[in-house]
């Protein structure tokens, strides 16, 4: 990896010194690396659970799992991917990139940064340990609806609740740190409207996190008191209402889905201009569209509850508000396409992932629009169609986005280049596998296959077999990705050029490769007509 200055006294045993350095580090680059490694590890664990699910669904009937264990796998897969893989990966990228992009020497609150990272391993040990407890792991789905999680939840639910609290604390502290960094640590001349889009999208993501995560904490707290302290927030016999749980959860839940995509928008907006060798089209409209999406995301939660019973007026309100979100989202897709229009494009691996992101994310946006139609949603709700929808926005969105970012910035982080041929193979196999896995789910869902059920009618057998084959292939591509990254870090070709990519613009590309452990100790000077100040051209 990167050669770091050793700050720990030399007489310690090297292993202890090594552990202490990573345990106590307050350096944004090292903490960024830690976040990315943890996210990658949990991505493998969550992925292994998805393999169990797809193996079981390969054929109708009960093959490998019992229904309760199947439900545990579905639940943990969702929780780990959302809170363990996607969110920490984005926080890791923010740690690495935000200070480099705004010309800051570090994050604003380095010790808090260390703390928010080290909470996470404990949170996930708590969550994962529930698999080995009596009664098994949580089995009520990642949305943990009451009363499944209150009255009928297994004893391990309490560990789950504590785990969610810890994750919440970690992400709120992380978000505060990012926000304070962006607001206070920009190099002189780096006005808000000169910030690269990745920084903008993270600023807005941090806002969403600070607004939404405490509501999730509130929901699990109410669950806890319902379970143990005699309250009846969600307990109908005590005057509560289980539907209230769904409102509280989705008030958090819908902003959460944007938390999982906005940084991906930012990444695409950095990469596409580089390989199209053009300025980003419509910088200001990109920023405004992102803000609009974030604000709208707080008034659309009802679209997850159309079938739960709502008055007509509320159904209409949530339907139109949801469809309204498609407008700023469409603006973004338009701008990415316009950036590519007549550019001198080349398709290195990061660009392939970014273009794949734009195309497949749009497919997911379309199925979202279909789900937003109240009468249609009564048919689609809780079927595999919903599963197809959110995997199309999350896999090509959040995961392809993160992978594009790793390919794009790895040479800057490590000073070594990945194997371009392998990278391309990775992209194409992953793209085939994603579509093979998730596209048939549209059809099985439209045909009426319910989600989260271990067995299914033989009518859906063919679609499911295709999905399972795709999923197996998708699992293999992760191992290829791991191999590519390890190979690049250990024996990749050395990069000497600071800019790395011919068309890359931005402060991070003015630093030597690999980026030194301490950078921008004296702030860089940003000229108004500096290359990355895209705003001034717009």
């Amino acid at each position, binding site marked *: 990896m990167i050669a770091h200055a050793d700050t720990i006294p030399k007489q310690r045993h090297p292993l202890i010194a090594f552990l202490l350095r990573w345990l106590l580090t307050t350096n944004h680059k090292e903490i960024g690396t830690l976040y990315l490694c943890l996210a990658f590890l949990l991505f493998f664990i969550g992925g292994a659970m998805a393999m169990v699910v797809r193996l079981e669904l390969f054929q109708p009937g009960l093959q490998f799992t019992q229904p309760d264990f199947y439900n545990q796998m579905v639940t943990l897969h969702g929780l780990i991917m959302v809170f363990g893989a996607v969110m920490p990966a984005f926080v890791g990228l923010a740690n690495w990139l935000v200070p480099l992009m705004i010309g800051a020497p570090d994050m604003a609150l380095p010790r808090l940064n260390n703390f928010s990272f080290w909470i996470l391993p404990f949170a996930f040990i708590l969550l994962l340990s529930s698999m080995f407890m009596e009664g098994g792991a949580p089995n009520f789905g990642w949305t943990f609806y009451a009363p499944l999680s209150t009255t009928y939840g297994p004893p391990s639910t309490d560990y789950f609740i504590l785990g969610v609290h810890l994750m919440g604390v970690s992400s709120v502290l992380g978000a*505060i740190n990012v926000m*304070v960094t962006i607001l206070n640590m920009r190099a002189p001349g780096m006005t808000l409207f000169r910030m690269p889009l990745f920084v903008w999208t993270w600023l807005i993501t941090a806002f969403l996190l600070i607004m939404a*995560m405490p509501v999730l904490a*509130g929901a699990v707290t109410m669950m806890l008191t319902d379970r143990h302290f005699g309250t*009846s927030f969600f307990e109908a016999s*005590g005057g509560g209402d289980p539907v209230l749980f769904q409102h509280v959860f989705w008030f958090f839940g819908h902003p959460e889905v944007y938390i999982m995509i906005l940084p991906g928008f930012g990444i695409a907006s950095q990469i596409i201009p580089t390989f199209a060798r053009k300025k980003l089209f419509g910088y200001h409209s990109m920023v405004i569209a992102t803000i609009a999406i974030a604000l709208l995301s707080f008034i659309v939660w009802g679209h997850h509850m159309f079938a739960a019973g709502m008055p007509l007026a509320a159904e209409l309100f949530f339907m139109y508000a949801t469809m309204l979100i498609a407008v700023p989202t469409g603006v973004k897709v338009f701008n990415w396409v316009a950036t590519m229009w007549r550019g001198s494009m080349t398709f290195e691996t990061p660009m392939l992932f970014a273009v794949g992101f734009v195309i497949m994310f749009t497919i997911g946006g379309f199925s979202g629009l279909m789900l937003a139609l109240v009468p249609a949603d009564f048919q689609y709700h809780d079927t595999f169609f919903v599963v197809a929808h959110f995997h199309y926005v999350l896999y090509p969105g959040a995961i392809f986005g993160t992978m594009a970012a790793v390919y794009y910035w790895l040479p800057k982080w490590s000073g070594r280049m990945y194997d371009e041929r392998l990278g391309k193979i990775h992209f194409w196999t992953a793209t085939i596998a994603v579509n093979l896995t998730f596209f048939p789910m549209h059809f099985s869902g439209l045909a009426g296959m319910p989600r989260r059920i271990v067995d299914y009618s033989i009518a859906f057998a063919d679609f499911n077999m295709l999905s399972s084959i795709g999923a197996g292939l998708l699992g293999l591509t992760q191992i290829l990705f791991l191999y590519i990254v390890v190979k690049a870090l250990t024996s990749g070709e050395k990069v000497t050029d600071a800019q790395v990519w011919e068309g890359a613009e931005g402060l991070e590309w003015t630093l030597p490769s690999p980026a030194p452990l301490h950078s921008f100790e004296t702030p860089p000077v940003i000229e108004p007509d500096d290359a990355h100040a895209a705003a001034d051209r717009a």
Partner: protein
Amino acid sequence: MSKSTNSKRRHVAVLLLVAAGMFGFAFALVPLYEIFCEITGINGRTSGEAVSAAPMAEVSDREVTIQFAAQVNRGMPWEFRPTENQMRVRLGEVNRTEYYARNRASGRVTGQAVPSVAPSAAAPYLHKVECFCFTQQHLQADADIDMPVLFYVDPELPEDIGTLSLSYTMFRVPETEVVLSEPVTDSHADHEGHYQP
């Protein structure tokens, strides 16, 4: 430098406050939701409070059908059903019906009925003068009870509603939440339906 440290501190403080505020907001959703449901009758929630009898100066000529339904929640060892399935009522007229409950368990069980009206748009117009759902019901082993509901339908009921249904779900109240303000209904004591609210 110190100016920027101050500004950082201020930002951290503000953001922590926002986070704490949102945590509180999650709990504020509880009363907000209740109020919202009361006002709009979402969820088919009817008002949890009795209205005084004979509030209407005049009884309208318009008639509607009201259907009665009952179910017990999982884990509730009671038999629970309406004594009549439906009736025609005139708007504004106070009517009475009864629900029957019998405890099949070998010990005392407390139940709480939760009403729901469909279509939910009709919920605000169904007024209960007296209802067994206002309080918990306690039944000793093998005891049974006829429980009255006194209600009227508001003459303001929207024109397009001709049939409404009143459905109760009987929940078992956990022993920790039983409120024993009234004497426990003894076996068969109230068999004749002399029910004391």
